[in-house]
């Protein structure tokens, strides 16, 4: 049965219910705007359903087992077994709790929820196609629209995800029975996070990467502890090779790769995970119908108020460009909603932090030393190694360091790079320092609890001023 055409109206139509869209919708409703949020899939978007949350849940579960397995030095002897099906059930429970929470929060804030795929008709109308049983479609008039359609994994031609042994990150996160051998194509952050999970599940993991190291966006000394730990976990790396072909074998694949010089290599595996990046989703929405311009990579360009080239249409999150991160999406969502509500909001943040939940974690915010130099600063650097941290040693994890980058004169903090335990949490203080215009002295003078990892941030600030207590100042 096809449901007849109904036209409804809304002040703000938000398309896509990921961390960009649902946050925008809630804030718009909080600001008194009549708001409709539409998604063709689950509330919470990629992040809650197939990204941040499920990946972090699997990382935590495998970490508990891994930590217990490697604590004999501490006197703890354990031989943990992971029941992958139970782990998946638990992970799904976490996801359900959070996506259910998003739905409840939307409703409690008065957001109208709609299920379906949105396509622009023009700059004030969209058509919503409902899937499933009550198939059909309806039109919706809007005063303002916020496009938050997110991104999808890039497919390598010939390695499409519909082939059973070829996994996207989403497939990998749903695995009930780990393969014996896994080939991972791509050593970016998603590839590295998932390789670590599978290695800790006892899978024989090989990583193939076109570039010459893991996570190329980061400085060498930042990724080094992660590479070292991955080596210890038995992950095998092959750099400078690109996957060029594959063939199904009984129950597995043989993958061919090629290096720069055209030399070929082959790898046997049971499954193959392709994690070579993500690309924006805009085509199904037909932005052009509303006059919204899309660049050659599929991204929608926006200004510092998250506005597209069309006055009443905004774009936020992955579809609006790099960095493709959940919290960047949410920030843009908040700004778009506030601008629509007439508030003087803008994307005026100094820096957007980023974290990678590898072992150990990496987290960064603001400028590296090289970036500060490029920007014309004469950077002042302070660093503190976790092996000199009482807290790090007393938890048995003391790889890595905190580095602060500051400008020379007043010592304003410009950036931070952290690799080590709880890096993802420690970066919060650094981000606040940057936003507040804090100086090295401000951070050094702030009393930090002993014994904590956060003391390393203070010591790095002291070190930049040649005043560190627990490391030598050079």
């Amino acid at each position, binding site marked *: 049965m096809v449901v007849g055409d109904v036209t409804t109206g809304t002040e703000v139509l938000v398309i896509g219910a990921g961390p960009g869209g649902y946050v925008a919708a809630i804030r718009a409703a909080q600001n008194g705007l009549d708001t409709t949020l539409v998604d063709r899939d689950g509330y919470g978007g990629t992040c809650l359903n197939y990204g941040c949350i499920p990946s972090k849940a699997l990382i935590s579960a495998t970490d508990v087992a891994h930590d217990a397995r490697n604590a004999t030095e501490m006197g703890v002897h354990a031989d943990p077994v992971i029941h992958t099906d139970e782990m998946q059930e638990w992970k799904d429970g976490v996801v359900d709790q959070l996506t259910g929470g998003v739905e409840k929060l939307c409703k409690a804030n008065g957001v109208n929820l709609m299920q379906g795929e949105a396509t622009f008709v023009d700059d004030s109308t969209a058509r919503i196609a409902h899937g499933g049983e009550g198939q059909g479609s309806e039109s919706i008039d809007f005063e303002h629209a916020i496009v938050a359609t997110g991104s999808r994994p890039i497919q390598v031609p010939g390695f499409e995800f519909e082939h059973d042994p070829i996994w996207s990150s989403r497939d990998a996160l749903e695995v009930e029975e780990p393969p014996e051998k896994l080939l991972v194509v791509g050593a970016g952050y998603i590839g590295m996070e998932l390789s670590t999970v599978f290695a800790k599940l006892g899978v024989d993991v090989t990583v193939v990467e076109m570039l010459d190291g893991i996570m190329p966006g980061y400085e060498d000394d930042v990724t080094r502890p992660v590479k070292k730990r991955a080596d210890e976990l038995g992950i095998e790396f092959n750099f400078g090779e690109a996957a060029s072909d594959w063939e199904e074998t009984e129950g597995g694949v043989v993958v061919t790769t090629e290096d720069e010089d055209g030399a070929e290599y082959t790898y046997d595996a049971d499954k193959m995970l392709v994690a070579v990046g993500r690309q924006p989703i805009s085509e199904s929405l037909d932005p052009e119908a509303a006059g919204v311009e899309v660049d050659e990579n599929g991204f929608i360009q926006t200004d510092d108020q998250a506005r597209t080239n069309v006055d009443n249409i905004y774009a936020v999150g992955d579809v609006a460009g790099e960095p493709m991160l959940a919290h960047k999406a949410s920030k843009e969502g908040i700004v778009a909603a506030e601008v629509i509500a007439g508030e003087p909001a803008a994307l005026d943040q100094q820096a957007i932090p980023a974290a990678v939940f590898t072992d150990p974690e990496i987290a960064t915010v603001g400028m590296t030393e090289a970036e500060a130099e490029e920007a014309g600063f004469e950077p002042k650097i302070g660093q503190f190694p976790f092996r000199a941290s009482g807290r790090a040693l007393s938890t048995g994890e003391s790889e890595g360091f905190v580095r602060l980058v500051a400008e020379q004169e*007043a010592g304003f903090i410009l950036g931070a790079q952290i690799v080590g335990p709880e890096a993802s949490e420690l970066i919060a203080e650094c981000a606040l320092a940057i936003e507040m215009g804090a*100086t090295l*002295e*401000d951070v050094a*003078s702030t009393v930090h609890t002993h014994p904590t990892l956060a003391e390393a941030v203070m010591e790095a600030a002291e070190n930049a001023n040649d005043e560190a207590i627990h490391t030598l100042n050079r």
Partner: protein
Amino acid sequence: TPDGRVFAPPAARKLARELDVDIGEVEGSGPGGRISEADVRAHAESAEVHDETA
């Protein structure tokens, strides 16, 4: 403020001591009257001008 607290970052407080400025007398230009290092410097300079003209 009720408890006589001054809202100023540590570096501004230290600068005030260095310049022998009573930070309680500095007018802050930040949100809510938060005092910056520049505010402390400006106060010290205007105090000097006062001294000279007095």
